[in-house]
């Protein structure tokens, strides 16, 4: 369990999965008694972080909101490294959904 | 949100080209017509000497012609401060003449003799050095 001051070094940082793939950002933290117990990621979280503009952004981005328990964090350096691959958390779905379309266009896998 | 409103207001204020032609605007308009004349002079002179490509001469002449024509249109119809009406409308005529000369250059970009003739005309009209 991480103390809240570590939260400052984690919030708004890049999330990287086990393979070093970029899969989102630490959009919010879940706290219990001043202790960080979870990471939240996804547009569903944005409205509470940025007022009106955040609500608009969230409306554009969708309601997705993924909770990652703090135990899943392998390492924290300039990014937050997770223990498993992105799909296992439900992260990076946007890229996964688009990829089949792009792969069909010639030159996309150069 | 507030800044967006300010931004729109600013854009409207600065983008607006309308308004009354007063003495200051008239001076600016005269300078613009001279500028287009002098640029046309350089263009025609280069055309005369065969120093332009056909496409460049044709397209650039058209750009200038459109600019002059729009100008003529605006000056012919805009409200003017009292006492200036005659001079503003005279400027409108000048711009229209400039536009038709440029139209000729645009239509015959490779006619060196025409270009030479027009070059002189533009130079005089714009008081160019």
């Amino acid at each position, binding site marked *: 369990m991480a103390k809240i001051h570590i939260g400052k070094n984690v*919030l*708004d*940082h*890049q*999330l990287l999965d086990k393979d070093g*793939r*970029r899969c*989102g*950002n630490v*959009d919010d933290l879940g706290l219990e008694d001043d202790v960080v117990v979870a990471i939240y*990621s996804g547009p569903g979280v*944005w409205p509470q*972080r*940025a*007022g009106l*503009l*955040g609500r608009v952004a969230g409306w554009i981005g969708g309601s997705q909101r993924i909770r990652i328990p703090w135990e899943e964090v392998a390492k924290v350096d*300039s990014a937050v490294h997770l223990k498993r691959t992105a799909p296992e958390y439900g992260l*990076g779905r*946007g*890229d996964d959904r*688009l*990829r089949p379309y*792009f*792969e069909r*266009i010639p*030159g*996309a*896998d150069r | 949100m507030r800044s967006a409103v300010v931004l729109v207001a*600013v854009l409207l*204020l*600065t*983008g607006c080209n309308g308004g009354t032609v007063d003495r200051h605007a008239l001076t*600016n308009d005269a300078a*613009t017509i*001279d*500028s287009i004349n*002098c*640029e046309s*002079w*350089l*263009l025609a002179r*280069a055309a005369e*000497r*065969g*120093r*332009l*490509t056909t*496409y*460049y001469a*044709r*397209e*650039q002449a058209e*750009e*200038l012609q459109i*600019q002059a024509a729009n100008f003529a249109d605006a000056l012919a119809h805009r409200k003017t401060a009292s006492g200036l009406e005659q001079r503003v409308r005279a400027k409108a005529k000048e711009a229209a003449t400039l536009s038709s000369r440029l139209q000729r250059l645009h239509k015959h970009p490779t006619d060196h003799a025409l270009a030479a003739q027009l070059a002189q005309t533009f130079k005089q009209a*714009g*008081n*160019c*050095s």
Partner: protein
Amino acid sequence: MSKLLNLALGILAAIGGFVDIGDLVFNTAAGATFGYQLMWVIPIGVIGIIVYSEMCGRVAAVSGKAVFDTVRERAGFKAGLYALIASEVVNLLTLAAEIGGVAIVLQLLSGLDYRVLLPLAIVALAVVMWTIKLDWIERIFGYGGLALLVFAVAAVKSGPDWVKVGNGFIPHLAQNNPWLYLYFVIGLLGAAMTPYEVYFYSSGGVEDRWTPKDIGLNRANAIVGYGLGGFLSLALMIVGGAVFLRHGINPEHLGTIALGAEEPLGKAGLLFALVGILFAVGGASIDTVFSGAYNLAQYLGWEWGRYRHPAGAPRFALTWLVLLVAALAIVITGVDPVMLTEYAVIFSAVALPLTYIPILLVANDREYMGTNRNGRLANVLGVVYLVVIMVIAVAAIPLMIITNVGQN
């Protein structure tokens, strides 16, 4: 030897890539309006972009993070979002102006219709960005942009009053038309310190996996590249004064700028100028659209990268495709690209502090940067330019209004 060659090639590409439509328009117009009186502004702008780029490059080398990654971390979600939106809007305006510029030059070269060339240019750019490796894109457009050196030749050949040129390097305020003069000061600085160049540069550094060992080489690359690029800006201003002001011309069309090279040098001058403008503005538009996609992807934590083929970073690729289409939508309305350029440069000057300040803070952060944090020189320059940037940002819009976007 190979490293030196690479450095030389990188510098060449940087010179050609430094000049974009904002520089072309503002430097020429400044020369045509005030002669050589604004020469002193150009070195200030060049040093400014070197300072900004160097800091971003150093942050990228030490932390492996590009600008918007850093901005979000440092400023937080909310402030970062404002910075992102401002940057993306400015980016899109700039892109639209550049696409318009490309189409204008293509029209001058081919005689084809402008409205047809616009979507053609977009498609051509998209194909290039999709299929050609970025190294090659940089080389092609960078070397093509070197044709702009014709303006250096034209500047000399046009026989300016060199004493007056020299005097232009002494900062002063013009006696006639001071407000328009100040507008040009802002415009020249804004055109020199275009943020998208910096976003692109730092993202490139992350992709090339710079480490602290690369800092020195890349600092040299930035200084020489931007410096020589600034030299081109000086040439444009001299041509503005020696050709346009001399003949009483106020250039309002992109094609007119090429005439500035034709006057002293004839047809060859014209052609080199047109080709140079085409490659410089075309290359700039690629940098701009990638920057727009980088910023969004970095802020949101998506996978990104030009080396990450489109299938590897689908949302990133979709972003730049959408940006191209959006730019097309703006410019196909028939709005004048030169006017659009002026707005883009002024607004980018207003938005500049939003990303400069977080970077300056991070570059100073001992925890983040370790021994590579700003030394005394970097901080003196960094703070001086912070003041410059804040003054420009605050003065830009009022001056734009007072001078009616430079129309006076």
